[in-house]
């Protein structure tokens, strides 16, 4: 018996920041679109704020060999936009300039991206964070930065009517966060797109050098077990399955991909204050110290410091030591503030296939990256002490809390390995199927078209040739709109 088939003008794989905008743009241009998502579809009413349940429902994770770094991604309709921290930054001009100079993306300029950025900004309700949404957790970071004379600012967020629940990254229960689940996906559906959840793309169907569709494995919604094959036939295929799955899909389809992965590494520093902070409420992230950034006009070493929620499990996991020491630290939970380092890594990794065809990632920060992480956590400790913290916990396994500048200065210089850190993880990933001007060194051309296969495009962060130095959702969405437009016009021209 032959497998079931669907026919469409375009099939988009992945419903997050790279896929949902592309699906919406293609559907609104009049194409019949099928949008595939391997995860489930949950709605706002399903988001109850219970961490264990929400993590299990909404996210997936893996680790990188070579470093043990932890990597997270959304695994539901809306993708990582459902579980990100709602932060919005315009694409940094310095990054676009680097991509032009180093990767030959001569057409990728501020002006060519501007209309797409504007559309994204409006669609997802991105706006500066005002005082009503700056928590004590964020204000303490701001206060410390001011006392040290460091630059910083409240970040723009894609929310409408935020009520400060502190659950942005567990599925916003109030519906305030304007994730793709509430914006691009409904927009695509209103234009006629069909969204298929529990549909895992296995490979691109390619015949005579041309994409013909996607071979899919349907998953049982209750068990997640395979429920049968499906083939979605379409002359236009857009891949936006995420940093792991997009390169893996290409590899399973016989297309070389997976090299050049880059990311933002992250660790967190925790501080205890005499007064309550209640850092588990308020926007999960809202204020950034930009002093040490190397984008948007800054010339620092390349990291940002962003306040982050003091959710109990992850806070405990990131604190050093165990037993009575951990209990004493966690016993002060309402008095804790926490900030993450967001590092623009220099390192490059790769995605490969395991024997079973699943994606594997190899990545290790460079010595320079780890040195900058050490620099960043030391600076964060100084900042929290300047803000009045009574104790500061560095994310160094087996370390004791710091109570003064003198104790911080007395720390012996040490060489860091990735496993010296209590919790080292990647917050944003890029590349693996990057655009570029040189066919020998890029999977896609500047339009996001996969070289050598007509009708096949990549529109997620896999197509970006490097990290952005800022939270990337706006850049990813704007690039996805640009690629959808180029794909539609390019394929129309090809057909003519």
């Amino acid at each position, binding site marked *: 018996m032959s497998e079931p088939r669907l026919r469409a003008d375009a099939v988009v794989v992945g419903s997050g920041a790279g896929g949902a905008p592309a699906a919406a743009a293609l559907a609104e241009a009049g194409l019949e679109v099928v949008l595939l998502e391997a995860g489930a579809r949950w709605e706002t009413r399903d988001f109850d704020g*219970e961490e264990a349940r929400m*993590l299990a429902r909404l996210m997936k994770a*893996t680790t990188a060999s070579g470093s043990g770094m932890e990597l997270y991604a959304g695994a539901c309709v809306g993708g990582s936009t459902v579980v990100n921290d709602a932060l919005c930054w315009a694409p940094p001009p310095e990054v676009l300039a680097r991509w032009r100079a180093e990767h030959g993306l001569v057409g990728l300029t501020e002006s060519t991206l501007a209309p797409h950025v504007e559309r994204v900004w409006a669609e997802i309700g991105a706006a500066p964070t005002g005082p009503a949404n*700056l928590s004590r957790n964020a204000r303490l970071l701001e206060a410390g930065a001011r006392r040290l004379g460091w630059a910083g600012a409240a970040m723009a967020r894609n929310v409408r009517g935020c009520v400060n629940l502190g659950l942005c990254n567990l599925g916003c229960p109030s519906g305030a966060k304007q994730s793709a689940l509430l914006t691009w996906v409904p927009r695509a559906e209103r234009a006629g797109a069909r969204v298929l959840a529990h549909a895992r793309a296995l490979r691109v169907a390619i015949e005579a050098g041309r994409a013909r569709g996607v071979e899919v494995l349907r998953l049982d919604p209750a068990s997640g077990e395979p429920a049968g094959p499906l083939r979605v036939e379409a002359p236009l295929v857009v891949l936006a399955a995420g940093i792991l799955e997009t390169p893996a899909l290409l590899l399973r389809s016989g297309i070389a991909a997976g090299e050049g992965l880059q990311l933002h590494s992250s660790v967190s520093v925790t501080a205890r204050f005499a007064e309550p902070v209640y850092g588990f409420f308020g926007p999960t992230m809202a204020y950034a110290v930009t002093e040490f950034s190397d984008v948007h006009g800054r010339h620092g070493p390349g990291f940002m410091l962003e306040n982050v929620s003091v959710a109990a499990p992850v806070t405990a996991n990131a604190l050093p030591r165990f037993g009575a020491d951990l209990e004493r630290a966690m016993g002060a939970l309402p008095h804790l503030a926490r900030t993450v380092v967001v590092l623009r890594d220099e390192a490059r990794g790769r995605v490969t296939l395991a024997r079973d065809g699943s994606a594997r990632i190899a990545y290790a920060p460079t010595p320079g990256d780890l040195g900058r992480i050490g*620099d960043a956590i030391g*600076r964060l400790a100084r900042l929290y002490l300047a803000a009045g913290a009574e104790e500061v916990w560095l994310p160094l396994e087996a370390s004791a809390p710091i109570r003064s500048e003198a104790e911080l200065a007395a720390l012996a210089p040490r*060489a860091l390995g990735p496993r010296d850190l209590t919790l080292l993880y990647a917050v944003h990933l890029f590349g693996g199927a990057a655009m570029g001007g040189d066919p020998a060194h890029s999977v896609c051309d500047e339009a996001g078209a996969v070289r050598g296969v007509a009708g096949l495009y990549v529109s997620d962060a896999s197509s970006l040739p490097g990290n952005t130095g800022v939270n990337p959702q706006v850049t990813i969405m704007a690039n996805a709109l640009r690629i959808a437009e180029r794909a539609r016009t390019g394929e129309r021209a090809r057909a003519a």
Partner: protein
Amino acid sequence: MSRPSIGVNGIGHRCEPREAPGVNAAGPTREVEAALARLDRRGFLRLAGTATAAGLLPAGCGAAPAALAPPPGLRLAVLSPRAYATFQAFALRLVGPACSALVTSRAIDPAAAADAWVARLPGLASALGQGLAVLEWAVWPLLPKLAPFTALDARAQDRVLEDLLRSRMAIKRDLYRGLKSLATLTVYAQPAVRSRLGHPGPFSAEGIAAAMRWGDGP
């Protein structure tokens, strides 16, 4: 010139040995899946498997110490009773006396929560079982000790944890980190623990108001 220290002049770095690539990326969880995946190294499993074949490492069977045994009627999906007991013992030492009291009184059951959690992740269930077996029985040179982890007194168990987290061997620290990730999730995400930490629970209007109050600063 000031003395070099973390965060002032930056610090150096010791490169750890590179391992062969190899982590599966599948499943719907976050830190726990990630941390457990790190246990799923071919070398680690080969070591544990070899030890099992050589009779050095029981294959997850055997009676659990009574105080750590699964409660009657609890059906474990993934963990053996011995693995359940080993995880419970690890969690008890990890989280300190107050949370431990909640475990021993059966108010919370991190090992049962871990079993349910990993049951959704068949690819990682074996890694967790192997990791717990190594923690319990020791495979030289990973954990040189003379008795099962669950049979050690609290101070000796703490020494094992210290050995793991301070080790120069990546595999030992991966074992500690993987189990710590699972233990912190299965303990600290419990409402009973949250309330003892002073967290009023999601949606507390008073808590939110206090969190957003700033006035003239700290």
